[in-house]
């Protein structure tokens, strides 16, 4: 065992990379849940985004095109969920599960031609002077664009939810859909838009895994990240900045665990690999005592009778 092989600067830098897919998916799901919809299909939308983004990036040679395609794919898949839950009024839990099962199959089908293919590389930004700073430069100023996009998105969602009229309407729909409907807001339309946003975010999160984090395509490669993102929203008590904190915490657990595997700690690999899931459960237990911040209409279907 050689713990000195672990470089703390690289550790923090890779922690941020590991956290970004989680952050993107969690921020998307946070907006969805704020509108009163529980979409359990995050994992399915992520894996579909992962392969759609991968395929688009390989075919076009541009990773950015990959991310656009991933967002589109995630949104299209979430549209299915919206149709089921908002129009056909199906049970949200069951529909979310259906989305995940369908997405896992679909991605495996789409991905057959891409196993073992290398995607085009995403360049890191390079700011003169700043990126060359010791320690801080590597940690803060030498990542890919999407990582910063994730942080910017968190800030944007926070501003919109807290300070704008649109955010207020979204929260009203999530807290009490009957009252929002009575005030003349289009509940179904607002929720559908939120679901589409969540799908696009989850798709991009998936593409971040297949294009930057790993980067290659293997079946089922999201390995539960979508579910951890769902847990993260609970962890964050539906607050954007706490989602960022949570994502970095889980990213940290993943990275430390991988580094310990590489360093050859006496704990068997399998038990280290379990740790992110076990810690998710632990965090859920600690935080589930307080449910006061959950949107009041979360998971309930809305049908205007008149």
């Amino acid at each position, binding site marked *: 065992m050689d713990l000195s092989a672990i470089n703390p600067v690289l550790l923090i830098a890779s922690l941020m990379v590991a956290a970004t897919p989680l952050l993107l998916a969690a921020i998307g799901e946070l907006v969805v849940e704020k509108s009163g919809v529980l979409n359990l299909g995050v994992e399915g939308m992520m894996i579909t985004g992962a392969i759609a983004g991968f395929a688009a990036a390989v075919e076009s040679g541009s990773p950015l095109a990959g991310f656009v395609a991933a967002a589109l794919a995630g949104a299209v898949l979430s549209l299915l969920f919206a149709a089921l839950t908002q129009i056909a009024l199906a049970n949200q839990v069951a529909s979310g599960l259906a989305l995940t099962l369908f997405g896992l199959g679909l991605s495996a089908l789409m991905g057959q031609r891409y196993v073992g293919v290398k995607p085009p590389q995403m360049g890191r930004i390079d700011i003169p002077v700043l990126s060359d700073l010791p320690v801080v430069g590597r940690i803060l100023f030498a990542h890919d664009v999407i990582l910063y996009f994730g942080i910017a998105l968190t800030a944007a969602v926070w501003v919109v939810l807290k300070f704008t009229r649109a955010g207020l309407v979204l929260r009203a729909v999530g807290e009490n859909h009957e009252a929002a409907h009575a005030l003349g807001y289009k509940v179904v339309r607002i929720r559908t838009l939120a679901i589409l946003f969540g799908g696009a975010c989850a798709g991009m999160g998936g593409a971040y895994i297949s294009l930057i984090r790993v980067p290659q395509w293997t079946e089922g490669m999201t390995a539960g990240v979508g579910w951890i993102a769902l*847990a993260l929203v609970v962890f964050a008590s539906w607050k954007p900045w706490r989602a960022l904190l949570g994502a970095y915490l889980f990213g940290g657990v993943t990275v430390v665990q991988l580094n310990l595997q590489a360093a050859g700690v006496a704990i068997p690999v399998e038990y280290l690999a379990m740790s992110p899931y076990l810690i998710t459960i632990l965090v859920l237990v600690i935080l589930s005592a307080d449910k006061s911040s959950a949107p009041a209409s979360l998971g309930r279907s809305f049908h205007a009778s008149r």
Partner: protein
Amino acid sequence: MIRLEKRPQASRVWSLATPLVAVVTTMIMGGLLFATLGKDPVEAILTIFWDPLFGEFAFYYRPQLLVKGAPLVLIAIGLSLGFRAGIWNIGAEGQYIIGALTGAGVGLAFYPMEGWFIFPLMVFAGALGGWAWAMIPAVLKTRFGTNEILVSLMLVYVAEQFLASMSLGLMKNPEGFGFPGSRNLQQYASAHNAEIVTGTGMHWGVVAALIAVIFAYVLLNRHMLGYHIRLTGEAPRAARFAGVRPARLILFCLGASGALAGMAGMFEVSGPAGQVSIDFNVGYGFTAIIVAFLGRLHPVGILLAGGLMALTYIGGDIAQGNLGLPSAAIQVFQGMLLFFLLALDLLTNYRIAFGKPEVA
């Protein structure tokens, strides 16, 4: 103008018809999917749904129907109890794995001793293992109000790592020349879940599945507990006024589904699969969710739905061999089925009306 009108009562006709309509719609859409993959859609659908039952080699495939259907039905019956009460155990895959590990563990511990009591003991251990694994989300939910969906799902990934660790370590066959995987239980008579009648595919798991169907039917229709389960699902507030204790219901539903999933895993590992290996689980725990919904959470419906799902597995394998249809296509097909089913469910509770709403 088209709009939806809530029916005063759920339509019985549509409740029975939606699964059938969903299957037919999925066949049509699946055919389109296969056509885009460059396969003849009619041939593909026939290969999946006709050949295993009535084709040239049906004598080989028909027993497989029981082998593949039994774990699906066994798990889905357990899940349906919870789903009816709004308790979502979606980690059956994990309970299935743990049941297989504890069941096989007991069998391997007795090796090479022979005795009639070993197999029943293994069944018990398998059920106990699955039950214990399901008790984690159950107790966390009743004690701390933790979301059982997320916890039970996280435990699937934990169980998978546990399975890997077991088949590479503790349960590895000492005479296996270093290959991962345990001893083959098919070659250990006392622990082998053999066919009861040779050539029929009828093993003890099938018997257990049938017993589970009967028990679930009696429970739901004739027993107070079953009534409480249905009441909690349909009217949670009324259920509380009627004195239903939610915590007990959560413990029972999760425990029962865990035990059944664990048993299914144990029957699989000691019979058709034969040994504990890294890729022992093939997703029955997740497919069973589709089976439960397709069977309308009704025991008899689940029995039929389990048969149908088993058919898609077997037919999918044949189509993979004969037509080169990718195995993932069948997964998409199964997912689609659940989609159409959920979408068409609308017709059970709502009526589609045309024209302007009349003023009451």
